[in-house]
């Protein structure tokens, strides 16, 4: 009985293109782990999963098998539809997180390049969301302008915000601005800068520098973190800490999750908080215990 188990385990490991050559000590350890039922399962030690959907890929080729050439703009528009506009009474523009794109396209470097092209052209704006050094929010420039101006309707700060949007946004692709730049390059006065901070277009980064931001996005960040925690909790509570992606999408969400669950799923896959494993029954999401 033990012998057959060892046979299966060896053949399972040799699925990969790289073969492992064992030495005597390693073989002895394998037998030890088989005999000792109370310890970890062999599959845990070697992380042997169900058979992968193997495919011989051409490494290094710039190729996204499913949809032809990589189109980040179309993906962005698809993801934007997942954003819940009604939740914020239409006051916020549709925000997508940069790492959500990584969950759809495999080639991260290409995604990054196309994003920087779109930003250069002035179509897309990127924001530092603040809760994570690597979490960036993406908003279409036209959307952003429209929502900000709509929010400023009837307020005293409207003129300054208008000036900011006209002057600064088209020319400057930065995420943050420091005092020197604001005063000298863009000729804003101190009081104007205070007005911009008040209106929410700039948030304080540290003494004398500010992040570009989306007004009223505090609630968005709060709900995002809340929902992310809840969805990760759902994956953790499952048996073996893993769940089929299709099944997770169908699940009922509790009151903590305010966004569509698909939005959160793209978020946790892209941020690599869960591992994506292709299996014969579909993609499995497994919690990463780091």
């Amino acid at each position, binding site marked *: 009985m033990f012998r057959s188990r060892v*046979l*299966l385990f*060896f*053949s*399972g*490991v*040799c*699925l*990969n*293109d*790289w*073969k*492992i*050559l*064992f*030495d*005597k*000590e*390693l*073989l002895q*350890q394998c037998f030890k782990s088989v005999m000792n039922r109370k310890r970890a399962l062999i599959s845990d*030690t*070697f*992380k042997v999963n169900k*058979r992968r959907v193997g495919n*011989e890929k051409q*490494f*290094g080729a*710039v190729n996204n098998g499913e949809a032809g050439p990589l189109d980040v703009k179309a993906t962005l528009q698809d993801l934007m539809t997942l954003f819940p506009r009604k939740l914020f009474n239409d006051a916020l523009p549709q925000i997508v997180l940069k790492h959500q794109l*990584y969950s759809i396209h*495999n*080639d*991260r*470097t*290409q*995604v*990054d*390049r196309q994003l920087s092209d779109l930003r250069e052209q002035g179509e897309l704006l990127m924001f*530092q969301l603040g809760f994570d*050094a690597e979490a960036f929010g993406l908003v279409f420039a036209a959307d952003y302008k429209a929502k900000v101006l709509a929010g400023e309707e009837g307020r005293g700060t409207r003129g300054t915000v208008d000036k900011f949007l006209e002057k600064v946004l088209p020319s400057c692709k*930065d*995420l*943050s*601005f*420091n005092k020197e730049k604001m005063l000298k390059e863009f000729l804003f006065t101190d009081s104007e800068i205070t007005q911009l901070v008040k209106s929410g277009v700039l948030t304080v*980064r*540290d003494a004398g*520098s500010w992040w570009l931001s989306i007004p009223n996005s505090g609630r968005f960040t709060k709900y995002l973190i809340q929902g992310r925690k809840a969805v990760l909790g759902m994956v953790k509570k499952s048996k073996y800490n893993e769940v089929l992606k299709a099944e997770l999408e169908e699940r009922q969400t509790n009151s903590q999750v305010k966004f569509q669950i698909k939005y959160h799923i793209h978020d946790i896959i892209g941020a*690599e908080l869960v591992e994506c494993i292709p299996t014969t029954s579909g993609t499995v999401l497994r919690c990463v215990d*780091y």
Partner: protein
Amino acid sequence: MLSGGADGVIVVYDLENNSRKPQYTCKAVCTVGRSSQYVHRFSVETVQWYPHDTGMFVSSSFDKTMKVWDTETLKPAEVFQFEGNVYCHHMSPIARKHSLIAVGTKDQKVQLCDLKSGSRIQVLQGHRGEVLSVRWSPRYEHILATASTDSRVLVWDVRRASGSLFSLDQHNGDKSKASSEAVNTAHNGRVNGLCFTVDGLYLLTTGTDDRMRLWNSANGKNTLVNYGKVSNESRKGLKITVSRSCSPEFVFVPCGSSVAVYTLHTGELVTMLRGHYNNVDCCQFHPDYQELYSGGKDCNILAWVPVVRPPDVEEEGTAAKGGSQATVNPAFEDAWSSDED
């Protein structure tokens, strides 16, 4: 192959596979064991052969010494003493005009020791934290890169008396991207792995912010290749390696208890090599055998051998790709039952 262990023992292995069996053990040719009076007292962190022949090798360890050994007699010809734990050292593989060993220790200064005279010649000041990794460029014998816990990677020309040439900046000078503390840093955490590509044109760095970055070594620009999350929890240096004479080039990074293989220039994760029981600390690629060797906390060194792909066969009326069965070297053929049971 030279290897150093956490118990201070240094072993030299013969990598040749003379048996025709799929499983073989590499024999140890010679050992500096616990019984030797010259053995290191604590963990050996870095070992390196003398670049020009195997008559000599250098090892550095947490017992604050670096020893230059004679392979024949296994006695140290020279011992360098330091004030702090030695994390790593490196000798330039192409140097003709100098025989300097760069040493990174717990101290913030990078020391350069001369092999010919046996003295400490130079000190490079510039880091504000422990120096976890040092590497000479394989292209220019005077260029040295050093990585430290202060999140910075500095590139030096040892001929210059003044400080470093430049520091690697992950945002490429775009000060707006990061919070103000993270300006001019290579990583958002400790930088513990450094590796030049074989032609010396690019430099790879890994850090405890779980990122790996590829830099242009001439101007220090971040090439912005995105490898995703490269999990890294090592408090000491990590030894990463790149392949040689492969197309495309691969980079092998120890990631937890497996070794991750990425394509160098596109950042694609090719595969994870699983075989170790505990954390993997180091890996090294043999250019002639095209094999990868990895060592880890489970006291094992594993050899990873690539399976040879069949030549593409042109057949009329069918697809150009060859059959699904890879033709395997008879020495590596096994008699286990097939997968489909």
